[in-house]
């Protein structure tokens, strides 16, 4: 198999591997109301998913500098807590990490 063929084959394989988990819930969960337990389950997922996405990933987000990464996350947290909004929080975090890397 040529290099080009195998890369495109891989792209198609990965397309299926990423699309199917996203697609199947949309096909099976249409308009039927769910029982109370499952309604709560899906209602809580945003919070648990965000918690699990932030840690431990964030402290490995800056190569070899987990303390600086943690400072960046704390800065974003303070900014967001006082209604800084998403964009400002991101800019502040990147700024804090950039400064941290310079010193």
């Amino acid at each position: 198999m040529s290099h080009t063929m195998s890369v495109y084959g891989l792209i198609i394989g990965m397309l299926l591997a990423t699309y199917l988990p996203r697609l199947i819930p949309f096909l099976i969960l249409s308009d039927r109301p769910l029982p109370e337990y499952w309604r709560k389950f899906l209602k809580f997922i945003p919070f648990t998913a965000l918690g699990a996405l932030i840690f431990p990933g964030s402290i490995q987000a800056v190569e070899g500098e987990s303390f600086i990464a943690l400072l960046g996350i704390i800065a974003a947290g303070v900014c967001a807590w006082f209604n800084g909004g998403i964009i400002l929080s991101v800019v502040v975090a990147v700024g804090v990490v950039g400064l941290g890397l310079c010193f």
Partner: protein
Amino acid sequence: MKRVSKAGFMAGVPIFLGYFPVAMAFGLLAKTNGITLEETIGFSALVFAGASQFMALNLIQSGAAFMEIVIATLLLNFRHFLMSATVASRMETGSKWMRLLVAFGITDETFAVAATAEGKLNYHYLLPLEFTAYSGWLSGTVCGFIMGAALPEVLQKSMGIGLYAMFVAILLPGVRKNMWAGVLAVAAALVHTGLAWVKVLPSGWNIIAAIILVTAVGAWFIKEQEA
């Protein structure tokens, strides 16, 4: 027919800004790994999954087999099953075809924004949100491939925190409104960190196990009116 929601585009702007530098890093890395521009665009346009694309470059480099990469991608992205289920359950009745498109645009970030938005969701809001995120990912990929090496190294390294800062900024307003949101998030963060540390499960499963475990226990103990 309802108009395409401007709110959807606006909600996508922070994601665009967060994706752009990460996608640039992907474009640059793909180029240095000998992937062509067309193939690199193919990855970002069709796979549209950040961590998996980086992982694929890594595995290609180390000579991994086709199935190994595809299965690793499936494991890494299975968490989107939970996220899609959350968004799908909150969507208004609508066109079946539009659901296929909305499903393609579900990522950690579009999910986070959509799932914390108020009220019912529809594709007039979701598609512009996802389109904005998608264009950030694609344009960043192309820019990274073409001129990524020109970025100063400090900037390249510090951009990595951006997406996490976005998650924090999406989570905290919910926590301010309701203490239980914070309890659930901290519990999931601790369980995920613990699972990642003991390394019993394959790496993509840690986050899925943490989300399911904490959500299942939470849904058992927390009463609907409290949360």
